[in-house]
């Protein structure tokens, strides 16, 4: 059944790391779950956890607002303060919402200014998550070849992304080089979600708020269409960088069952918009979750 999921991904030109885990039993099905990949916006989940924890402990002042410079971006994709033309004054809690639910890079970088990447990583290590390392903030990710190519030729940046690997999982582009970029494995992502969705060392109030922000995610074109329903709650965070398309989420059924779903993929198709690839990711993830549910009963 793993080969079926692999085949579904391959048909869409994807190579991926998938992991589905039953939250109650811990049973899981996985494809390449320990392969590190650039994490892109997935870092905003541990960023939210670290930030809210530091507010709770008083390390960050959550009671006075922070001024955030506008991103003033005009290209399609980014949302929130990233597109604002004027500075804003926001409280940290609200910045956490924008960063997590909207994947707003300007909000995230305002949070990184309060909790540097190293500190986020240290938090992950304290929570015993090893495969997730945060090395830089989001501004690094807006300096990719995509920004260099004129409109209509951005797919060429994807050709560069697909072809630019060097031996040992390096890459000519720093943002895709796993020795220089923020990285995560599918298993580490699942472990982070397990910390949030099951009782753990993470403060329950912090965990609840991060869960709520993930349930309010606005990027719903990837795994969401295949997992959302009236009979379940779907919460997730997407991550996209050049030819990488990721999502990590949790589906909670009204009968009490819950599953962690993580999909980290890289595409060999040089196209910016790939709805079929995203559908294939969801199809493969659903397939594995259904297989796991049958096995566990």
């Amino acid at each position: 059944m793993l080969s079926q999921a692999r085949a579904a991904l391959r048909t869409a030109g994807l190579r991926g790391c998938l992991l589905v885990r039953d939250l109650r039993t811990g049973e899981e099905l996985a494809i390449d779950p320990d392969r590190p990949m650039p994490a892109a916006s997935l870092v905003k989940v541990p960023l939210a956890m670290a930030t809210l924890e530091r507010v709770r402990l008083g390390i960050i002042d959550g009671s006075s607002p922070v001024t955030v410079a506008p991103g003033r971006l005009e290209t399609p994709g980014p949302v929130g303060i990233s597109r604002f033309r004027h500075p804003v004054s926001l409280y940290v809690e609200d910045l956490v919402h924008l960063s997590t639910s909207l994947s707003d890079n300007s909000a995230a970088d305002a949070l990184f200014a309060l909790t540097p990447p190293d500190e986020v990583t240290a938090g992950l290590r304290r929570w015993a998550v090893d495969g997730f390392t945060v090395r830089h903030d989001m501004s690094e990710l807006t300096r990719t070849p995509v920004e260099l190519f004129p409109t209509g030729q951005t797919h060429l940046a994807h050709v560069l992304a697909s072809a630019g690997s060097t031996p040992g999982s390096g890459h000519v582009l720093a943002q895709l080089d796993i020795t220089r970029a923020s990285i995560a494995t599918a298993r580490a992502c699942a472990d982070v979600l397990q910390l949030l969705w099951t009782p753990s060392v993470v403060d329950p109030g912090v965990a609840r708020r991060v869960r709520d922000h993930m349930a309010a995610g606005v990027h719903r074109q990837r795994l969401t269409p295949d997992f959302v329903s009236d009979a379940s709650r779907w919460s997730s965070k997407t991550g996209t960088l050049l030819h990488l398309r990721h999502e990590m989420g949790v589906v909670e059924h009204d009968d009490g069952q819950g599953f962690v779903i993580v999909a980290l993929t890289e595409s060999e198709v040089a196209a910016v918009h790939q709805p079929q690839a995203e559908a294939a990711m969801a199809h493969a993830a659903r397939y594995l979750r259904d297989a796991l549910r049958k096995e566990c009963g």
Partner: protein
Amino acid sequence: MLAACHAFTSVSAHGSFTLGAAAIGIPQPVASRRVAALEAHVGGRLLDRSPRQVALTDFGRELLPSARRLVEFAEAVERSAEQARRRPLEFALPEHIASWRLASLVADARRRDVRLHLAAANPRTRAVSVQAREVRASLLPVPPAEGSWSVALGVVGEPPKRKGPWYLETLRLGRGDDPALRRRIWLSAEDDVPHVRDRLVDRSRALGLLPGQVKLGASLVSAAATVSRSRDLLIGTAVEAEDLRMSWSPLGDLSLTRGYQVEASSHEDGRRLRDVLRVEIAELLGAEPCA
């Protein structure tokens, strides 16, 4: 030297300047001048001119066999040139062109005094054959702007419901569609060239088609066979569609064109095919002759 020897051998054979000159179609004074020039050149009298007849000197008798051989060789050169001119021009064309069309081309070429001997092969083989001089000329695929002929490519095999262009985006799967049932568009070996294949692949990616939805067929026939028994489609010309007895539509969201140029081992052969047979080759391919 040759003309002089020709006059000398003819006069000697006929024993008279008048008859000898007439036999080779030159005026008698010219024959006399040429023999005299030869005598000056070889440094001695070859013929004794007496009122009643012309006879060989001893010197002339010595030189006569060689002079004859020179004239015979010259005639042999002319004969082989004539033969070479008559040799058929081996011309390599794309595979799977209908026989009646090929026969038409050969017949039309004969009317224009070009004798063709046709061979069919895929583009790579045709290019190699003309470089290796296995054929005297090949019709090779080139970007349309560089060719003497261009022919529009469209979609073959879609049942015609209405006239009008067919959109490649039609093949794009919807979110609820089963990828196993995806339709594919096939390209034949004739179009496995960058200015067709790469443009089709790039456009299909941009339109959201899956990578496996554009495929290269082993040959036009195998691709057509797949198309005839499935909902897949083939890229081809209107002439190819007609010969396959399938429908043809122009492409709506992409313009694909085949260009053709003649590459020949001799300049003259190239000229004959490009210029003399320009219209006939255009008809064969269903192409437009380019300026």
